[in-house]
């Protein structure tokens, strides 16, 4: 029985009871409890099932290292799986459910896996499910997936809010135990900007539980005083419930602040992800106690010694009435003493060491506790709960000398520093023989961009396990860090007095000579069911690298990432390999230290602001008029404007026919607009474009092509000569920022002595294409400027006003119709659009979308970047030789286009295609050729690049690339269709509509 004690519990408020449910059972705890403490207070030791064998699992630890007590928290939009009960603060109305069992926690069908445990050894899945191949996908994987995973996946979108925040500091201290507090005091005294982050809600770490004295007073008093002092300092920021998840290059640190896990529904963000740039990082992250590997060490009721004492001292909760302590070190005796002081029974302390001489054992002895040295737990008795232990010689092989009845086994295998932050960026560890653990090697730290040490371990994280040593170490390390920053510390260091401890003795397997049967019941990884026998088997099968052994056995791969299992596992591996532990090494420590919710990583980036949505000034009008929007980069452009029951296809056809018969409006605001100005601007543009732009007369427009250095087409658009020394370059929608960057790249890096400035004014203007035979009539109705053929001829532009709005009007056409593109200040774009719509009502004006634009340009044989080009196409392939200057000495891409592969005559070249039956060639179809290639695939001689139904012509039209290009006019070729057909098409001129260009030039 675990239960609440009558007295004690430094963190709980007994006057404030809290109701919660576990597996629908109503339970009661106190304010200040963790969920794990409250569960134990309600005698709920069994909290889950293990991953592989579905063994019953109880609470083992009292903090972030807990492997077993993982629960499904909350319901619906507040549901979160895999929450650690040991770090979950209790609140009223908390609902928790245990995981990984069916049908119930107490009665689990998956436990049969355990009965077949000897058939489920390490690497079982790899060995078993290899053959037959097809069975993996259809039989094994669905089954394994169903039984895999601990928590459930949420079924609803996360109902909580999350956010990020940026912070900067000179010294970041991870961990608010006494070492972290000491380091913060020292660091802060220098005037440096200090951030002190603690993962728990409480400061001070283990010192108050362990009864350390600091400056002659109980640790708790010193902690309180330090917090008060730090709180008053302007250069110090302190955050509790803020877990430092990882350290990264250049002093970058991520920390996950839990703001409202314990206050759901109060409107605050649930978590906040801190993105911190720190000058130096001090990792005062403490140490974790290791379990011992003895048979049955996974039975509920076997707990870490430190956890047993935490529950008593912090929460006034006893894990059981009779606790047997098993240890290889002195520290664990504190648990026996604490239990006895709380009035609980400790029938026996089993110490694996041959001699037990320390002060703490002496104190335990004085309290009348029986200590037996050189002994081992041979096995734990019990099923769903510990009922006793069988004891033998540690030096032996498992003969039982004695049995003791108990309901808790408190184990301690020594302590391992939390080296994660030190290791994330490459800090190296050294093996400490005396304490049998890896600790940070300050001679080989992770380094910063300036070559200086980036992370410094302090206190227990640095191997200074006891309070006095930890305080001294933290003070020394913090002083060093301050000195490295060129600052000076002030004030005196606090000193601690603790009960001295005798040396520990490493114990990796208990008893050391245990037989196979016992070793197969010694758990290393409680969550993933990895036992001593599994690691030994992996070693025998040749998995000698610790990284391979980890993946083969799944040791340390659970949500706790081996916090408890790591060192024990690699010690067993080293034993099996007969190599020293440091030679075997550790697996890689990777962030995050404990799991960070995906919501915190996403931060504000969800829903409406998942990513920026770019809107033109007329965007709201399009939405209000039922436009179907398509993404074009981050823009949303109107694809078409369906009316009533129209399909998109019908809408597109109507828009095209109306534009060709009357007049249509296109929102072309997204096109890039870059002003290029300066004495060398003409020369610059002649280099950028394949044709000549320097001789473009003022007031005129010219279509131009841009290539990259390799010669491939990169962008196209109309260039306008604004004045003697300034040009306006239109780019594609997707090219605006890219081409502007391309221009600046050449100007800043290569031609830095050319006098040219550029400005990207894309968003300064709304741009509206007014196209169709009645376009001029429409503009004349608005009035304000002369838009006649004489004053404003094709490929000219003019500035003036329309309907009272200042505009610049370009006579350019992408539709093949009489067309004006009107640029107007963005803040008046909607006004002009609405005036055009209103004035054009009796002319039949209709807006048209991007798809109508695409079809109309294809009818005219105009190429489209991204359709006819794909990064492998040069202008010559598209019969655009007329747009390539033969006179210019150079332009970007010229040399590339002269390379033999690009200059060879049998490249795929542009032509038009008309199916013989009038149908539409499928998107992406290839033009098939005779024979097959080396891979047995049909040979091809080309491919379609644009294919549409032309409502103007009433048939399918297409452009494509084909060997021979326009030389093939009249040939009939075959395009493939899905699934196995072909369609015949004749090679034709790609200009299907108005070849002479009479429509656009009226």
């Amino acid at each position, binding site marked *: 029985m675990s239960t609440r004690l009558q007295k004690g519990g430094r963190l709980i408020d007994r006057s404030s009871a809290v109701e919660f449910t576990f597996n629908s059972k109503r339970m009661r705890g106190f304010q200040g409890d963790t969920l794990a403490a409250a569960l134990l207070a309600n005698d709920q030791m069994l909290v889950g099932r293990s991953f592989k064998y579905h063994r019953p699992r109880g609470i083992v630890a009292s903090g972030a290292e807990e492997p077993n007590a993982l629960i499904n928290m909350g319901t619906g939009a507040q549901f979160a799986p895999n929450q650690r009960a040991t770090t979950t603060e209790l609140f009223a109305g908390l609902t928790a459910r245990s995981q990984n069992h069916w049908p119930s926690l107490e009665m689990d069908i998956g436990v049969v896996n355990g009965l077949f445990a000897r058939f489920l050894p390490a690497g079982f899945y790899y060995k078993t499910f290899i053959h037959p191949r097809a069975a993996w996908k259809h039989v094994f994987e669905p089954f394994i997936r169903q039984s895999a995973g601990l928590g459930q996946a949420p079924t609803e979108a996360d109902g909580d*809010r999350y*956010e*990020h*925040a*940026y*912070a*900067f500091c000179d010294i970041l201290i991870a961990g608010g135990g006494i070492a972290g507090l000491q380091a913060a005091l020292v660091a802060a005294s220098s005037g440096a*900007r200090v951030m002190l982050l603690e993962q728990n809600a409480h400061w001070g770490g283990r010192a108050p539980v362990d009864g350390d004295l600091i400056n002659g007073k109980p640790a708790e008093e010193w902690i309180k005083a330090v917090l008060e002092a730090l709180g008053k300092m302007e250069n110090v*920021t302190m955050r509790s419930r803020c877990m430092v998840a990882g350290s990264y290059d250049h002093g970058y640190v991520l920390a996950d602040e839990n703001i409202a896990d314990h206050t759901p529904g*109060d*409107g*605050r*963000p649930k978590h906040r992800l801190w*993105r911190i*740039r720190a000058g130096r990082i001090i990792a005062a992250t403490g140490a974790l106690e290791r379990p011992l590997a003895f048979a049955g060490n996974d039975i509920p009721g076997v707990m870490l010694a430190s956890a047993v004492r935490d529950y008593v001292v912090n929460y006034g909760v006893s894990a059981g009435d009779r606790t047997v302590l098993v240890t290889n070190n002195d520290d664990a005796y504190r648990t026996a003493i604490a239990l006895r002081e709380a009035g609980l029974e400790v029938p026996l302390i089993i110490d694996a060491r041959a001699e037990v001489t320390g002060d703490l054992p002496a104190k335990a002895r004085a309290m009348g506790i029986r200590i037996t040295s050189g002994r081992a737990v041979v096995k734990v008795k019990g099923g769903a709960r510990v009922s006793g232990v069988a004891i033998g010689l540690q030096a032996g092989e498992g003969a039982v000398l004695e049995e003791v009845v108990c309901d808790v086994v408190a184990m301690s295998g020594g302590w391992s520093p939390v080296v994660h932050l030190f290791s994330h960026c490459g800090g190296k560890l050294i093996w400490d023989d005396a304490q049998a653990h890896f600790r940070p090697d300050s001679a080989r730290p992770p380094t910063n961009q300036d070559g200086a040490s980036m992370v410094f371990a302090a206190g227990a994280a640095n191997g200074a396990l006891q309070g006095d040593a930890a305080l001294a170490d933290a003070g020394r390390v913090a002083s060093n860090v301050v000195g490295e920053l060129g600052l000076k510390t002030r004030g005196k260091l606090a000193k601690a007095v603790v009960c001295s401890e005798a040396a520990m003795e490493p114990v990796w397997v208990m008893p050391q000579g245990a037989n196979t049967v016992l070793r197969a019941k010694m758990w290393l990884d409680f969550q993933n069911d990895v036992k001593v026998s599994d690691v030994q088997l992996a070693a025998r099968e040749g998995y000698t690298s610790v990284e391979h052994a980890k993946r083969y056995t799944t040791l340390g791969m659970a949500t706790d990432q081996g916090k408890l299992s790591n060192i024990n596992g690699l010690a067993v591996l080293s034993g099996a390999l007969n190599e020293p532990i440091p030679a075997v090494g550790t697996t890689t420590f990777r962030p995050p230290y404990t799991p960070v919710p995906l919501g915190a990583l996403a*931060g*504000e*980036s969800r829903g*409406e*602001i998942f*990513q*920026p*949505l*770019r*809107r*033109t*000034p007329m965007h709201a009008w399009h939405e209000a008029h039922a436009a179907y929007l398509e993404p074009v980069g*981050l*823009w949303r452009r109107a694809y078409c404007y369906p009316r009533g029951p129209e399909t998109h296809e019908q809408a597109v056809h109507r828009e095209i026919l109306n534009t060709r018969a009357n007049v249509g409006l296109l929102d072309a605001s997204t096109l890039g607009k870059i*002003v290029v*100005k*300066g*004495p060398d601007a003409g020369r610059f543009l002649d280099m950028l474009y394949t044709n000549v732009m320097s001789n473009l007369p003022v007031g005129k427009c010219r279509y131009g092509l841009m290539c990259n250095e390799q010669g491939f087409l990169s962008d196209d658009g109309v260039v306008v000569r604004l004045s003697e020394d*300034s040009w306006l370059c239109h780019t594609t929608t997707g090219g605006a920022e890219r081409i502007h960057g391309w221009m600046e790249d050449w100007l800043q890096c290569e031609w830095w002595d050319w*006098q040219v*400035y*550029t*400005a990207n*004014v*894309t*968003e*300064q*203007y709304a741009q509206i294409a007014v196209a169709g035979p009645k376009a001029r009539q429409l503009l004349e109705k608005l009035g304000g400027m002369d838009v006649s053929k004489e004053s404003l001829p094709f490929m000219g532009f003019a500035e003036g006003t329309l309907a*009272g*709005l200042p505009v610049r009007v370009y006579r350019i056409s992408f539709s093949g119709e009489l067309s004006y593109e009107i640029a107007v*200040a*963005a*803040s*008046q774009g*909607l*006004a002009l659009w609405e005036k055009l719509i209103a004035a054009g009502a009796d002319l039949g004006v209709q807006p048209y979308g991007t798809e109508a634009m695409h079809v109309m340009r294809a009818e005219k044989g105009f190429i489209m970047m991204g359709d006819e080009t794909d990064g492998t196409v040069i202008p010559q392939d598209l019969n655009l030789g007329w747009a390539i200057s033969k006179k210019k000495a150079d332009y970007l891409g010229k040399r590339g286009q002269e390379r033999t592969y690009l200059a060879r005559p049998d490249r795929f070249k542009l032509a038009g295609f008309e199916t013989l039956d009038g149908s539409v060639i499928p998107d992406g179809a290839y033009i098939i050729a005779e024979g097959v290639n080396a891979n047995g695939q049909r040979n091809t001689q080309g491919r379609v690049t644009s294919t549409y139904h032309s409502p103007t012509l009433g048939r399918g039209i297409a452009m494509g690339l084909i060997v021979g290009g326009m030389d093939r006019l009249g040939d009939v070729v075959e395009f493939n269709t899905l699934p196995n057909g072909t369609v015949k098409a004749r090679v034709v001129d790609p200009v299907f509509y108005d070849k002479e260009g009479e429509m656009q030039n009226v």
Partner: protein
Amino acid sequence: MSDPVSALGLARFDGFATVQEIGPLGMISLRAGPEVKALAKAIKAAVGTGLPAPRRIVVAGDRAAGWMSPDEYLLVMPYADTEAAMAAISKTMGAEHHLAAVVSDARAVFDVTGGKADQVLRKLMPVDIGQMAPDELRRSRAAQVAAAFWAIDGGYRVVCFRSVAGYMMGLLTHSAQPGSELN
């Protein structure tokens, strides 16, 4: 002539700080090297301020000149005054190599004010606001888009591109939610 409209019609959100879209605000992007003698005169003629030092903004009433890059300045003024300012720049710079472009309509402008206005920005922009000079103009990003800001009375003025005004308003609204103060 229609009145020019800002991207969001002067949207506002009152959270732990106040977010107010303002505008449209007159802006000119002026490119020229600081070594050009006429530059300081042109800025003086356009907005009445001196030449800003690197990463600084010089404010004079409702006008300002900010340093954007080694050869780019941002001139701020009332919306209606850009034409006169452009003329003044053109006249003063004469034949000196420069580029001046009106960008008033390419931008959206937000004032974030209140005692904790900085906290709204600290959630979105990787900027060490605590170390900024009072007259600093900072070009950075807000979440996923480019943004610049400088201190004004009681808070900050944030400038971004017009097309992402809605996104920026969403960001600022999210970050200014009551109860989400950083401290």
